[in-house]
């Protein structure tokens, strides 16, 4: 008779479903734990990467700021001292000096170079000595005039002005480890031009496995939140890399310009020593040396004063244009400048 077989069949299916349900509950708990731990690990991984990159950013900006000071105190100061001693300078007299048409420095530009020199002297002596850390980072990110406050006398005073003094992005670069809450001024604020919001940074302190629920669904929900935070951190990574690269690009550009100016300044000094300080009586080659040095000095001044970041921490497009134009000039006219 077939019925007894049927009865046995149904009984077996029921039994299997019961076992399946029990297994699901056990696996769900275990999987939730694994998923929460994984979310923790991934978040820490992403946070560590951003930590590394923001420190690199801070270092690159600080290096650029430090180099700006070194150039101002070194070759640029030497140039201004020597150039100031030369009388009757007239770059409009271009007979026999066809390439002088490429070198133009008018009185306004020369006055700006002199002002820069004066600013450096007051920065590095007197009230503001031993510039370090945040000041150098700000100097790297912004131009000189945008960075330091000036007294009514025009002398720089020992305080960062305006944007440099309260800038969350600069604080973000200089703060302690994100995981230990080292956000400083950046805590709760949007940094890097609003690309990385405070909450994404604050999640660094969150331990998802402790906070997340015990169910697999809760763990999945936490994992999705972590995914969103990681996405924002990765955007921050890209921005940090962009800023770091821009800083180093300007660093190397300034290094190249300085390597051209310093030998020219030594030659200028020789000219003054041998031919005196009346430009109008100089030999053609001597006039060329003075003109070249002046042109490079003005270029250096414009590079030093080019800001890399805007007030809200975004890369400035004009800086890239300045970089490309100056590189083109150095690469294309190296023979003219250095021959």
């Amino acid at each position, binding site marked *: 008779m077939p019925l007894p077989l049927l009865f046995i069949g149904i009984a077996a299916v029921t039994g299997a479903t019961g076992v*399946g349900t029990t*297994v*699901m509950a056990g*696996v*769900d708990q*275990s*999987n939730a734990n*694994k*998923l929460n*731990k*994984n*979310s923790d*690990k*991934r978040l820490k*991984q*992403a946070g*560590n*990467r951003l930590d590394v990159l923001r420190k*690199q950013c801070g*270092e*690159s900006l600080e*290096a650029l700021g430090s*180099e700006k000071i*070194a150039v101002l105190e*070194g070759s640029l100061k030497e140039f201004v001292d020597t150039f100031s001693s030369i009388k009757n300078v007239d770059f409009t007299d271009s007979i026999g000096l066809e390439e002088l048409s490429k070198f133009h420095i008018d009185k306004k530009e020369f006055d700006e170079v002199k002002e820069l020199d004066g600013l450096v002297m007051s920065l590095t002596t007197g009230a503001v000595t031993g510039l370090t850390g945040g000041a150098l980072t700000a100097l790297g990110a912004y131009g000189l005039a945008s960075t330091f406050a000036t007294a009514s006398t025009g002398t720089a005073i020992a305080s960062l002005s305006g944007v440099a003094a309260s800038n969350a992005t600069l604080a973000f670069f200089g703060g302690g480890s994100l995981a230990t809450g080292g956000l400083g001024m950046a805590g709760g604020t949007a940094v890097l031009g609003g690309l990385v919001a405070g909450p994404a940074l604050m999640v660094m302190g969150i331990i998802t496995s402790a906070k997340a629920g015990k169910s*697999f669904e809760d763990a*999945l929900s936490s*994992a*999705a939140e*972590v*995914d969103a935070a*990681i996405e924002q951190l*990765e955007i921050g990574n890209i921005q940090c*890399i962009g800023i*770091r*690269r821009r800083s*180093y*690009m300007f*660093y*190397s*550009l300034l*290094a*190249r310009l*300085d*390597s*051209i100016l*310093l*030998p020219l300044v*030594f030659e200028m000094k020789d000219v003054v020593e041998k031919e005196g300080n009346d430009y109008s009586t100089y030999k053609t080659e001597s006039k060329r040396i003075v003109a070249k040095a002046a042109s490079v000095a003005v270029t250096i001044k414009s590079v030093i004063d080019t800001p890399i970041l805007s007030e809200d921490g975004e890369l400035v497009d004009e800086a890239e244009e300045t970089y490309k134009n100056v*590189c083109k000039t*150095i*690469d294309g006219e*190296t023979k003219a400048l*250095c021959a």
Partner: protein
Amino acid sequence: MLIKKKSAITTFYYFIAVDKNVSDEEIDMYESIANEIDPDSFNEYKDSIDEDYQKQIDKIIDEDDFFDVILEGIDQVLLKKVKEKEEGVSSRYLLWNLLVVAYSDGDYSYEERKLLKHIARMLDIEKDIFLEMEQLMKANVAVSNELSTIEKSDKPYNEIRPIVEELENRRKVIIESATTLIEDELYVPVKKVDVPKNSLIGGTMDVVGNVASDVASGVVSVASTVGDQTTKFFGNIMKKTGKLFS
């Protein structure tokens, strides 16, 4: 992108030959870089690289084929894929060290630059990365020149010491910049969670448990020697050639 170690070394070999003027400095550089990249195995296949090069050069039909034949030889080696779990060399690391070799004899020739651009395209290196590395190398050379000039001048040491210290620091910073550019390529982004729909199978959670590591093993040690190599090479070159170039 990762490149097989032997392929990277072979690329250097072809590169130093491209301007038909192989200097002693370039040969020294090639041997140093090869031993740095593959200290365990380079000596085993060193001769085979030379043999393969000769076979490739034998394909020249006319004198003006030389550059194309070099290009074809490099393309063949760069197309060889790195096997799973095999150690390789990062493309940016290769590019930087090729730039070091290009500048080692004081003459960054037209052929060398043309070949470097081709290699950058083959390895999918972004245009701006290539140009940036080139500018970094030019800055490195300019600073090294400046240092050499200052040190040879008759100015008193007390006067030049701050300049010398600043210039040595600039070289370090420039090399640090190149190192970070190379390391950027080695970073593997953190993966999003990927949980299979069927959560009944306990074994599937192993997939979620794997978190991407920061740097592929074996490659980071190569990148970390960038600074040492560049400083060593330029130190030697400045002593040997004393040439001024920008």
